[in-house]
């Protein structure tokens, strides 16, 4: 479950169709999520890219420090609608 490699579902130019693939907005072609990304990669707001995300030693889970009660969150949660999101 390594998060090191960039995936297509980390890119703002990608819209997910299902758990394996999606459509690249630039080419309008179907691409696999886990295939190699291109040079036009643009980071999608996700918790793991947020300045308020704090690692807590678990592989995919962390803490959201934007809120007082510091709820848990997970790295791959898409945050395009999160009003507290701040790019790292």
């Amino acid at each position, binding site marked *: 479950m390594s998060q090191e490699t960039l995936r297509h579902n980390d890119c703002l130019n990608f*819209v997910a169709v*299902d758990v394996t693939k999606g459509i690249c*907005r630039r080419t309008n072609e179907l691409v*696999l999520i*886990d295939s190699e990304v291109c040079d036009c990669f643009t980071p999608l707001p996700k918790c793991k890219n947020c300045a308020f995300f704090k690692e807590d030693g678990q592989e995919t889970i962390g803490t959201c420090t934007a809120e007082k*009660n510091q709820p848990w969150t997970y790295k791959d949660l898409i945050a395009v*609608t999160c009003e507290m999101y701040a790019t790292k």
Partner: protein
Amino acid sequence: MSEKSVGVQEVTRSLADILQEKGIPISFQYGKAPEEMVDREVKREPTPRAKKLRDLYFNTYSSVDLEFPYWYTRKYMELDNEVPIVRRALALKHAFSHLTPSIYPGELLVMGKAHYYRGSFPMPWLSESFYVAKEDELYQEALKRGSASSGELSKFGSGGGNVTKSFGNVVSIAGKFGIRSEEVPALIKLAKQWVGKSVEDLGHKYEMMVPEYELKEKLMRSLICMFDSGFTLPQGREVINYYYPLQYGFDGLIEICKQRKAEVAGKADGDGITGMDRLYYYDAVIHVIEGLQTWILNYAKEARRLAGITEDAVQKREYEEIAETLEWIAHYQPRTFREALQLTYTLHIAVLNEDAISGMSPGRLGQVLWPWYEQDTEAGRLTKEKTLELLECHRVKFTCIDCFASTGVVGGVLSGNTFNNLSMGGLTKDGDPASNDLEKLILESAMSLQSPQPTLSVLYDEKLPEDFLLKAIECVKTGTGYPAWMNNQIGIQFLLSQYGPEGMTLPEARAIAIGGCLETSPCTWHPLTLNGKKYWIPGGAGQPTSVGVHFIANPKILECVLFNGYDHRLKEQIFPPHNRKLETYEELWEVYKQYYEMAVDALCKCNNIQHDIWRKNNMTVINSFLKPDCLEKGRHIGQLGYRYNATFNVESCGTINMVNSLAALKKLVYEDKKYTLDQMREAILENFGFKTAHEVGSFSLFSQVKKVGGEKYDKIHSDCLLANKYGNDDPYVDGILREYEDWFCAMCHKFESLYGKPLYACQISVSTHGPQGAATLATPDGRLAGTTYADGSMSAYPGTDRNGPYALFNSATVWDHAKSQNSQMNLKIHPSAVKGIEGSRKLLELTRAYMRRGAFHIQYNIVDSKILKDAQAHPENYRDLLIRVAGFTQYWVELGKQIQDEVIARTEYEEV
């Protein structure tokens, strides 16, 4: 003869071969089919746009993400001690506000349950035990997936869009849904937050206090009962109501709620129990509406973003139009047909995201949208071609709806279907034919864009015009299995009888529509004003009908009667031993009724507790502002805010096998005394000398294989098969059906739902005739162990209706169908039997004949069985093949083998 070698000299034979040898007149066909494979006669092509979107669906897995449950749980857990309905509303608002908007190229209608094309999500606040129990398994699978080879990345499993097993970085949940492996730890963490708090856990805590709880658990284990509706599917099989937002717009509704808040704050108004709750109700409704507005506007924002980065001028303009549509409907009454269609679809998804729901039907959508269609076409703003394209897009969006529930429910009961049934025809409030031109276009779009959702139903009434009915017949001939045909007048009679005590009148009953497969649902009329013109539009006004005691396996109860309450499959005593000798048929029947009532009593009490827990903490807020008369009363569903509340029912399955079995016992054991009851019991336990269905790998009776040395039971089996069978206009067996129906329909009224209303009979099988058949030993009608029951409630057992459709109709209508919420008849007809316009007229006349006999429902599979056999052998060639199962149409490749076998085995009528 097909032969299968076992060992060196042992040879086993299939039942079909044995019957042929013995000249026993049971076959899959009535009449003679052409030798060659015959395709369906009517075929249409969708518009390129809709075809592209549907093709994308064909290439899409059922996918799960956690956005909704994450944001819901985060807020809910933060609001400890808040008033329950406000807490729930704020959690819903938080969830809707944070969903990621996904818009796909070419879409005209947008939005979805989740951010995947065919997305859904778990609701651990209803049930979390599956994930907690599977924690290790899911974790291990996720870890393994993390190191999966790249070769697995593009692997597509069988079963259409079902993720039948894990692959690549995808973990299969329940053999149906796929989740990204990196999200699995979050799924487990979420589930654990609901341990002890979910409807399942709290319901379980209190249902154990029911004295009959142990019996209830045994009934579930034995599969005499199929599922607990309280925490699996607490809502559904009902008709939605789109009226209020269509009339007032969301801003208007917020204003109404604010006004009502001010009127009721601090006042009980004579109601010392719930009077004060009205304030919290209106406050909650405002919160959820605000959440829905944010959700819609997030999509509008995304459409604007896409318009900004898209170079293609046509696509750019389409994104802008999407944004304009959403920005308007987030606040106001729709101005155009497209806006109204988008709003109704958005509301539909909103309701489905609030709860695990199967069978939320759009109702008479063609009549609801008529005002906009009429005004747009009159003004020249809308063409038929554009309407068709929009309706096809609507079909794709509805087909993308998935329902995430437990394995047994999604697979065993629903076959992955979501039962969004769109009703057409019927009568207006004043008793005139209600069909219109838009409904004809809905039929057209269903012919050109063939897909399971929304499925269609015609509310057949003698007053409906011939051209509309023939259009519906033409649609049937495409082989999609829809529209189904429901008898409007019989449905109205049922509604008046069941909901009369709650004030239903005849004009109100005429608003009838079908919820789910074929659940007659209480509806109402509302006056809608558009540009100064008033229209009466229909919409749902009742609670879910997916609730109550679901489903009782009638043949399995008979099995328990024969074996003194003991289940030989589980090797467990289910019912208390009756210790009766069963010396007469009357005694047998008496014990059958006693066991049945005992089962319903235990199941009803436990079910009431589950639903009571649901209404206390998980009440619907969205449906509780859409349906009358919640907004007027200031009460939600759990406080009898809806107009009609007597919707809980008892669902049965396997009626025809039970009736045929009673006939065989009556004749062979009690009247002719050809066999003793013990001989019959022995033959049943020995499966009449046959292997089990699981050993054979087929669940159709005629594919079953004799064990070596099984000839000992040939005679008794042959006699059982030849005993009187339902479906042949035979008074002997039809009299048993009549006696059963008279008893069953009345018996259900003895039991009461948590809302203090009487239960009633519901007689559909959905897909439960597969798994419940698999759990049942051989039956005295000659059916073998583990094989599927007859489908529906009025369909004959495959191969046993030998005297043509009219004899079958006579058998089916010996009882009064208006005493039940429904009945269900599936007929499989070879395409050559209804060819051409003459064939269409014949099919309409056949339908009419059945309706005129007082039947409630019929539906057709117009298909050559040879195609189905080929599709079973070569599923890769049949991704788009649709088939009618029970009350729903599904892609063949997404059906389980039990159901595929059963559909193949149904009697094929070569002439009508």
